[in-house]
Each structure stands twice: as structure tokens, then as C-alpha cells.
């Protein structure tokens, strides 16, 4: 077998060399032609073209959940938009599907291909946005917004728009979030009742409660009790970590915070070490799951909550309350189980400090090579105009929703047709994350009404908690290049640091912490710190 291969090789040498050369030259020409359209790209203000019928290509997330009769590129919403926006403006809309789970990878490929790039693309990842902006691949939408999009600008507001700027230039239209609350905590009220204990109000009280859960095992789990559910996902550890952070001066806030991906991380903030020390104590006393470092996707946690092993945990505010979610399943598994929303972790000032979402969602971008930048902005402007947003998000009155106290309430048992109308709403209405009803209060109310009625009280409580004492993200004057570069690596290091320091023997905590911090700083943490310090000085000098 192997000997034969060699002979083939000799016979084919001349030919393969020839073809190799041919292939290379083909590749070269293919790739060099790639870069040409960019040269002719640039801003395009060819308004005279509006008479001619043009095609506008828009990216859309494909979650593979299209109902029978619809596809992600041909459904109620695409037709609605074509009819109400496309036809009057002489535009054909074409949707370009991108799988949700690999949006960044696929988008990179699309952008690099040069041809067939959609006119509207988007991502949740600020690093990707910064990279595109830095490499000069995006259209400056500032003048276009001023000229064509008064409603959109009013809808988003200056704060949200600020997130779409790169070094002072508006390279993206950020979507607006309808709700910025992130986390709440949950406790087994029936366990507390059984032990005759009050709801813990502070971190110290929580510690005592957890110890009682462990010793007395009120859930009769037979030694399997996990007093505090923990994972290596941010929803579980962030509320705990941030409650240990000391009050910060402005300078500390701007220079010592490390933004990795879309979240701010407290690696260098005063108090962070105390938080790790507390985690270490909890772990070594058997108060958190031994395998928390393996649970990146919260699957094990969800399982443990639903089977009644977990006494207390933090999570995205309304996450436990979905139909057939962890609370629903818990009640089926353990009759009489009660899961209550609580706000426990307390910082030095007695506040329940916890992070919140940035007010923006998606970064919507127009590639520089696009010749339909004006139409793209008009598309977004149309969404923000009049009733359009409301109609797109809520469907048809009577069939999809009825109005109760200014809130569109989803019709119970809607027809199949009505249900299928909005399955892709979240991904089509790109200018907003979540339902927009004009005010945060109404938004939250509407959000609670989408949840199962039996959990209404706890959902509302969780939403209030999620919006209490929130720590806003720190926005720098210009993007920190080191963050774009090292963000992913450092996020891994940060998580590793939590896992290693938590799992260390108490007497080894100090040395493990030192080693991990050194590694973190050497892998880009120092570079971020230096750059942020420099930018802060610039900001002060202004």
C-alpha cells in the first residue's frame, strides 16, 4: 500500500507541479480581486438611485426554529416588511441567514469574502465591532443618521448611540435594550420555614443559613444537599463577587476595571481578593458544588435545582420561572417546594450591588463595501417610526394580543397561525432587545406578563431585585485595544482564577492567588491596565 503511493508520486510529479502552479495562480487572482471592491466602496450618498428598484441585503440569525410553511427568509415578518417598507421605497429585501450559534465565525467569513456581504450586519460581540471598525471595514453612519433617521435617533437616545462609536466616529447603530436588569438570587423558602429561619438579609446571614442547610439537610436529600448552587458562568458568580468590591473612586473605576467581552470584570478592583477568599471558604466547608468548575453551561446547576438539591443560588432574573423551567420542574419533583426571589449579597455600604446590562444590545453595522448604506439606514428608521415597532413586536390585535392597561397581553391559546407570526420577532426587529412600550416600567410589566401566571409574584420580585443598586458598565472615551486583543484569553484566565483559588486548600490560597494574578497580568491584564490608565489621563486632560 505504502510502496505504491511512492510510485504514483513519481509518475505524477511533473503534472502535479504544473497543476500546483496553476492552482496557486488561480488562488492569487481570486484573492487579489477580493480587495478591489473595497477601493471603490466608501460612503455612498447616491440618492438619485431611489427611483430604480434596488436590493437591500439584511443579515438574519437562523435558529433553525422556523415553523412549517415558513423559512427564515420568507415568513410573516419578512413579508410584512417587504410590503410596508420595501414596496413604497422601491426596495427588494433579501435576508441572509447566519446560524445563531456561530454568528461571529460566520460573519467573519462573510465580511472577508468581499462579495455577497449583506448591507446590514450585526453582532453582540463588542470586540468584533471594534475590530471591524479598526480595520476600516465599516461605513460611518453618523451623517446618514442625521440626514435620514430622526425617529431612530430619538428612539435610541444619545447614551445608547454612544456605544456604537469608535474613536468618535459612529460606526454602528446599537440596538436598545428594553430592560437592563441582570441578576437576582433565589432561596428555598420551604427549607427556611422548616428550619424556622428568617430570609437572610446580608452575606454573613447567608453564610449561617447555608451552614444550616448543610448540617440539617431540610430537603432530606440524603447527604446530597448543595447549600449554594455555583457554576463557572457569570450569572452565578457575579452577584457574589461584585458585592465584595469596595467603594471606588472615579479613577479606580476607569483604570482598574477590565472589560472582557461585553462585561466588566473586577479582577483588579479592591475587594476582589476578599470575594475569592469567601468562595474558598464556602468550597472548603462543602457549601458549594465540588464540580462547579466543570459547569460552564449551567446544565448541572439547572438539574440540581430541579431535583431539589440546591438551597440558594443566583441566576438571570426571571430564568427559573419559565414554563417547564427549573422551578416548574422542581415543583413537580418535590411537592411543596418554594423558590423565592431574594436579594442577599451586601457590600460594605449595605447595598445589594450587582452588575447591569449595558443599555445597548446588538451592534448593527453597514460594511464599507455596501452600496446601499442609505437604504439600510432608512430600513432601520422605518422600524423606529410610528407604530411599526409595536406592530412588528406584537403582531395583530385580537389574534396575537389584547390591550390591558396599555400593555399588549399575549392571547392565551393563540391559533397556530398567530403563534407562527412572531417566532422570529426577536431577530427581525434588530433595533431593540426585548419589547419596547415606551417606558422601563411598562416594559418590565409586559415582560412579567409573558411568564406563567402562577409565578407572577416571584417574577416581579426578581425584576425589582435585578434593577436594585445596579453597577453601570464603565464606558471609556475610546476603545481599549488591549481588551479587543486579549479579552477572550483573559476571560478564560479569570474563570480559571476563580476555580483555582476557590478549590485551593485554605493554607494554599495565598500562593495560588498570587500565581494566578501574575499569569493574568502577564497574559494581557497589565496591557489593559496601562492602556486604560493612559486613556483616563486623556479624559482628565479634556
Amino acid at each position, binding site marked *: 500500500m505504502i510502496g505504491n503511493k511512492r510510485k504514483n508520486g513519481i509518475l505524477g510529479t511533473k503534472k502535479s507541479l504544473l497543476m500546483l502552479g496553476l492552482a496557486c495562480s488561480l488562488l*492569487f487572482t481570486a484573492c487579489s480581486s477580493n480587495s478591489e471592491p473595497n477601493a471603490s466602496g466608501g460612503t455612498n450618498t447616491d440618492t438619485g438611485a431611489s427611483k430604480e428598484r434596488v436590493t437591500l441585503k439584511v443579515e438574519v440569525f437562523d435558529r433553525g426554529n422556523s415553523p412549517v410553511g415558513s423559512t427564515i427568509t420568507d415568513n410573516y415578518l419578512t413579508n410584512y416588511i417587504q410590503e410596508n417598507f420595501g414596496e413604497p421605497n422601491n426596495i427588494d429585501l433579501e435576508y441572509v441567514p447566519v446560524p445563531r450559534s456561530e454568528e461571529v465565525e460566520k460573519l*467573519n467569513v462573510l465580511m472577508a469574502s468581499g462579495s455577497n456581504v449583506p448591507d446590514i450586519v450585526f453582532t453582540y460581540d463588542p470586540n468584533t465591532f471594534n475590530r471591524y471598525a479598526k480595520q476600516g471595514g465599516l461605513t460611518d453612519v453618523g451623517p446618514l443618521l442625521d440626514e435620514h433617521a430622526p425617529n431612530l435617533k430619538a428612539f435610541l437616545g444619545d447614551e445608547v448611540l454612544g456605544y456604537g462609536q469608535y474613536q468618535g466616529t459612529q460606526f454602528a447603530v446599537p440596538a436598545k435594550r428594553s430592560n437592563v436588569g441582570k441578576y437576582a438570587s433565589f432561596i428555598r423558602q420551604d427549607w427556611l420555614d422548616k428550619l424556622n429561619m428568617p430570609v437572610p438579609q446580608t452575606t454573613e446571614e447567608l453564610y449561617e443559613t447555608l451552614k444550616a442547610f448543610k448540617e440539617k439537610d431540610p430537603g432530606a436529600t440524603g447527604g446530597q444537599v448543595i447549600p449554594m448552587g455555583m457554576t463557572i458562568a457569570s450569572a452565578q458568580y457575579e452577584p457574589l463577587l461584585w458585592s465584595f468590591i469596595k467603594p471606588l473612586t472615579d479613577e479606580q473605576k476607569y483604570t482598574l476595571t477590565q472589560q472582557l467581552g461585553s462585561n466588566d470584570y473586577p479582577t483588579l478592583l479592591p475587594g476582589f481578593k476578599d470575594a475569592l477568599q469567601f468562595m474558598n471558604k464556602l468550597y472548603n466547608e462543602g457549601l458549594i458544588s465540588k464540580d462547579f468548575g466543570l459547569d460552564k453551561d449551567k446544565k448541572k446547576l439547572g438539574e440540581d435545582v430541579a431535583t431539589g438539591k440546591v438551597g440558594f443560588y443566583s441566576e438571570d432574573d426571571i430564568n427559573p420561572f419559565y414554563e417547564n423551567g427549573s422551578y416548574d420542574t422542581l415543583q413537580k419533583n418535590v411537592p411543596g417546594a418554594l423558590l423565592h426571589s431574594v436579594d442577599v449579597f451586601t457590600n460594605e455600604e449595605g447595598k445589594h450591588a450587582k452588575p447591569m446590562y449595558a443599555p445597548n444590545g446588538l451592534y448593527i453595522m453597514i460594511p464599507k463595501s455596501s452600496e446601499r448604506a442609505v437604504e439600510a439606514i432608512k430600513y432601520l428608521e422605518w422600524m423606529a417610526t410610528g407604530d411599526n415597532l409595536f406592530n412588528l413586536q406584537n403582531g395583530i390585535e385580537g389574534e396575537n394580543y389584547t390591550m390591558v392597561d396599555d400593555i399588549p397581553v399575549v392571547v392565551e391559546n393563540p391559533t397556530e397561525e398567530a403563534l407562527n407570526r412572531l417566532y422570529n420577532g426577536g431577530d427581525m426587529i434588530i433595533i431593540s432587545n426585548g419589547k419596547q412600550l415606551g417606558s422601563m416600567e411598562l416594559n418590565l410589566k409586559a415582560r412579567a406578563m409573558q411568564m406563567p401566571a402562577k409565578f407572577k409574584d416571584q417574577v416581579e420580585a426578581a425584576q425589582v431585585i435585578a434593577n436594585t443598586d445596579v453597577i453601570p458598565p464603565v464606558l471609556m472615551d475610546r476603545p481599549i485595544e488591549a481588551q479587543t486583543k486579549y479579552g477572550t484569553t483573559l476571560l*478564560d484566565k479569570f474563570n480559571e482564577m476563580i476555580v483555582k483559588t476557590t478549590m485551593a486548600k485554605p493554607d494554599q490560597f495565598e500562593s495560588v492567588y498570587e500565581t494566578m494574578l501574575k499569569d493574568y497580568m502577564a497574559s494581557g491584564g497589565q496591557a489593559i491596565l496601562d492602556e486604560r490608565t493612559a486613556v483616563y489621563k486623556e479624559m482628565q486632560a479634556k
Partner: protein
Amino acid sequence: MASSPHLNRLHKEETAVSWNAYFRRYWQLYALLVLPLIYFIIFKYGPMYGIIIAFKDFNFFQGIVGSEWIGFEAFKEVFGMRDFYLTLRNTLMLNFLDLLVSFPAPLILAIMLYEMKVQWFKKLSQTVLYIPHFISWVIIGGIVYQVFGTQSGMINNVITSIGFDAIPFLTDKNDWLATYLLVGVWQSAGWGTIIYLAALTGINKELFEAAGIDGAGRLKRIWHITLPGLKSTIVVLLIINLGHMISIGFERPYVIGNLAVREYSDVLSTFVYRIGLQSGQYTLATVVGLFQAVVGLVFVLGANYTSKKLTDEGIM
């Protein structure tokens, strides 16, 4: 393929005849060769063009050609990264241990299967041994978690219920190493027997009979007949394995590894994934890939050279 010697002979005889006549006669054979050639050119040689990304500050709005040359800047950066050395060490360590543990496993298993006389049991064992090969690593990862978990893994449930301390199979680096290696054996050993079993069928049965008559026991027969019969196969596989010393599959370390044991589980392939695909630093990722390829080539050539010197067997 069997006609190659034939072709060579003809070639010599017909040197006077024009290339045209020769080609007209044997063009089908060449035509057959075209498909694999095209495959190699498009999928194996074509992408090599991308190597120049390693020497450019790659900006994908400008394409490969349009990006600026930066010489060996990226190499300097990669060779200055701590994680590069850590992942390089881990790659070599995991591969070397794998070679020690996973390489002999299919050989031993194949000999055991070969010695089995009850046919139906032999067939059944083979099938059972092959199955793990067809399970994706993602699923194996899930199984490993369920079986070896510290808090609620099956094995640790048994250990703790009889009063011992749970063993952190997945979260202590040394225990993890053992888990990693054994899972690898479980997954690949059965499938690996195929090539040995094929080679074993080539051994003349009369040799065994003659040895039996001469009074050689089972172990003696294995030592003096079976193993020498497998020698060339073992050498070839060993060379191929050595060539892969520096490269490592992505899925197994990524799926079985975790943050608590990153010190051992982070390897070059996960490193490339992190800096390349996740952080979009294609230049750095290409540098690491190129480095792996060059070192891999050195390993293969070295192993081949040594093997030729020692045993006269080689792949080139």
C-alpha cells in the same frame, strides 16, 4: 496500482515510440490519478498559500494580498507568550503519554482477539470494542462527567457511600491525566485493532502449526511469529504517530479538559482556537499552525530516517 511495475517496463521498451502513443494507450490510468491529485491540490496544497498570513498583519477587509508584510513580528509575539510554551509542553506531554498508553493497547488487543478460538465470541468482542470509536467526543465528554464527577459522578457515589473520600478524577491535574489517557484508550483501542488484524491475516498459518509441533507454547508463538509478522505495521504506525507528536486533536482535550486542570489540558489546538477563531487574531494562529507543521515534518523525517537505519522499514 498493481500495474505500476508493468508500466515502468513498458516505458523502457518504448522510449523510441512517441509520448503520444504511450499516452493514448494508458490515458485511463492517468485519468484515474487525476481525481486524487485534484483533491490534494485543492484541499492540501491550495490552502498552503494562506501560510503567508503568518508574515502579514492580516486585515480581512484588505484580503491576504492587501495586508501589510510584517516579517517575523508575529513569530516574536507568539514565542513571547507564556501560554504558547505551556500549551506546547502539554501537547508533547499528552501525546507522549498517549503513545506509551494508547499505542500498545490495540496491538495487545489485536493479538488477544487473534488468539481467540470461539468465533461468535470473537465477533461479539470486536463489535463491542469498535463502538466507542463511533461516539462523538462531545457525547463522551458528557458520559465522562456523569461517571467521573466528584459531586455526583457514578464512581464517586460508590466510593463515598462505602465511606471513602471522593477522588477528584476531573479536577485534580494528576487524576485528570489518568482519566484523559484511559478514556483515550477506551475510545480508540478497539478501532485500532483493525489494521493489526488485517496484517495478522497475512501471516502463514503453517508457521504456527510447525511451531506447535516443535513444542512452542502460546507465548513463544506470539513472540516469535506474531510479533515479527507485525513488525512492519508497527513501525509504520509508530512513524505516523511520531509525526503527530506536535499536533493534537482539538475535541478530546477541549471536551475532557476544564478550567481546574487547564495547567495540563490546554494544548496547542485549543490555544489556536482561542486566539484564532475566538479572538480573531488570525496571524498569530497561523504562526502556531506553521510552527506545528514544520516541527511535525522534522519529527516524521527523523523517525523515518532512524527507522530505516535500524530496521530497513520506512514510509519514504
